């Protein structure tokens, strides 16, 4: 990610601002549309399965998400 260096320097500036939610979320909110969509859909999927013991087929579901978003 090209933004990595900028992101890290931003982080240093706000290190003491513990509750800066905007900053925590910034890598997602500044992401390209398809990347943001992938992350949000994967989060939803992972959250739904948090308490499931088996992770069977989750990778397939994630592949389906990626392929669905990036066409």
């Amino acid at each position, binding site marked *: 990610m090209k933004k990595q260096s900028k992101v890290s320097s931003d982080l240093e500036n706000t290190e003491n601002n*513990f*509750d800066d*939610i905007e*900053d925590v979320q910034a890598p997602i909110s500044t992401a390209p549309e398809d990347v943001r969509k992938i*992350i949000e859909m994967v989060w939803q999927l*992972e959250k*739904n399965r948090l308490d499931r013991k088996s992770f069977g087929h989750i990778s397939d579901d994630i592949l389906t998400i990626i392929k669905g978003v*990036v066409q």
Partner: protein
Amino acid sequence: MKLISISFCNFRSFYGRTPEMFLAVDEVKNTTVIHGNNGVGKTSILNGFTWVLYEKFSAAFASAEQLVNKRAVAEASPGQAVECYVEVTWEHDGKRYRAKRQSRVYRTESDVEAGKTDMFMLVTAGDGRWFVPDQHPDDIINQILPCSLHQYFFFDGERIEKIVRNDKKAEIAEATKMLLGVEVINRSIRHLAEAKRSLEAELRTIGDLEIKKLLKQHNNIESQVEAISKRSFEIQQEIEYQNIFKQEVAGRLRELGAVKELQERRQHLESQKSLLQKQLAKSKDNLQRFISNQGYSVLLSEKNIQFRNIIEKLKDAGGLKSGISREFVINLLNGSKCICGSYLHEHSQARKHVEQWLEKAGSSTVEETAIRMTAQVDEIDKQAVSFWQAVDTEQVRINETRQTLGQIETELQEIKEKLRKNPSEEIRDIEQRVEDIEVKISELIFEQGRNQQQTDTLNIELDDLNKQIAKQKLNEERQLLAQRRITATTDAIDRLSEVKTRQENHFRYSLEKRVQEIFSAISPAPYIPKISDKYELTLMENTLGVEMPVAASTGENQILSLSFISSIIDKVREWSGKKKMLMLPESSTFPIVMDSPFGSLDEISRRHIAKIVPEMANQLVVLVTKTQWRGELEEEIANRVGKEYILIYHSSKPDCEQDYIELRGVRYPLIRQSPNEFEYTEIVEVNRDVE
């Protein structure tokens, strides 16, 4: 998750259906107090919540399998099903959920047989219409408040210190990670990386693209073809020029009297030679055309004989009868009228006559086809004869032409020899120059032929390359798509890793700070709670500048546990309130349902906690005995109580001691004599309008 109500039916000590216990939901008056003596059903209420929501029971819940009220079982006839259920209503994200978990038991002669447990859920979005959700009820509840976190919100206050015990460190770390969304991020990163590997494998199966190499080859060949074509044009011009030049040079011989005739003869022979060469080429073309158009006819003679034999056999067998045709007879029968005008009704004599003709008549279709094919076969036989004649004629012509050409060549060679050996140097010179030009022309013609051959080969290569390029272009699109997907996945992983780092920096420290604040407000000890990078919660003390873990007492651990739970609720609510945080559990409001609160704490700590917990939790339900309630708890919580209930125990013991509690000046019974041989618990709401 905001709890709205709970009700029971034949659940543990509650006989029949209890009234719906509505819980305090007001922002300030957010606390519900449920009074009851030991063993009357306070723990059953706590477990009622966890049973409906998670099908879990607390550690202290004795004989979980005996869920069904004993009186209800006793009253059932053998074989009859006894139903027991708990129903909980809550609100989340503008929707109201109603969940009911029920279990059935069957009474046998001597025992009770357990049936299955079912879960039902209905949802309404506020318009009053209830519907069955698409998702499984357990999944819905887990999204709102994950099962593994339930013990931090529904707990026994006397045992709450266990959540921070050393052997539970990993569990609380997991729970914290889940609440802060770290677990969701970790799993997302891990599973996205797996997906990325699959995408990379897919990319490998597409293979290395050679499209650039192929296009380069294509361009090379195209420029070669172009160069050859250019050269071909030059050669053509050069040949024409050399021919003119040759004529000019040779023409000079005609001006010299000694060889004038010889030269004229040579010119005549050359024009004849050219004519014959054209004729020879034409004859060869004719021969080719004959072979490709009619050559097949000479190979069919055997098949033609076989065909004629078949026709003969058909004729002999009567298959090809001439005269009246079968189709004609069928038409008459279908029309039910003969050509003579007689009607051919079913079963009539006339019809039978005509039908007999079907036996005798042949099929006109087969006959027509046989005739047509016989004519075609005859034609093929004739073609074979004319083919051989034409070939023979052309062969004769070719032979004659070759012979004449041979004679002309010989004579031309003789003339050349004569001119070469002519005593006149000038004539010899001119002849030499003519010969040189002829050599030159011959070389050019040879080069032209070679180039033509090369062009043909290159064109075949070009066709092949075009096919390969088209195939590769298709693969290129697939490859580009796979690469774009990998790039997006890599970017997602990078960004999630960055969010994880930031979250650790922000959330963990922020949570730690809050736990420290709350702990220090409650506990008189100078200990400092710390949350490690593994999210493990430890109580530390600072001895002479060195941080050391504390061997904490039960009371201190209870304070630490409650501080931790309060901090988590406070911080998650704060973060979720600012912005929708997808990685966090959906609930931004958390209830605390606490049985026997603040068990082992001293008075000061109890007072502090009693003050802090209702402030931190969005909603508090406390289940208390008279002694637990009286004093600092009552004093600190009183102004936050929105709902209050009494659990009245009806004892079957003949001489049971009656007990009472006085609330707002009203005396409520806690223990009463049962009117029958069964003990049971009654839920009564405290009238809070009385002052």
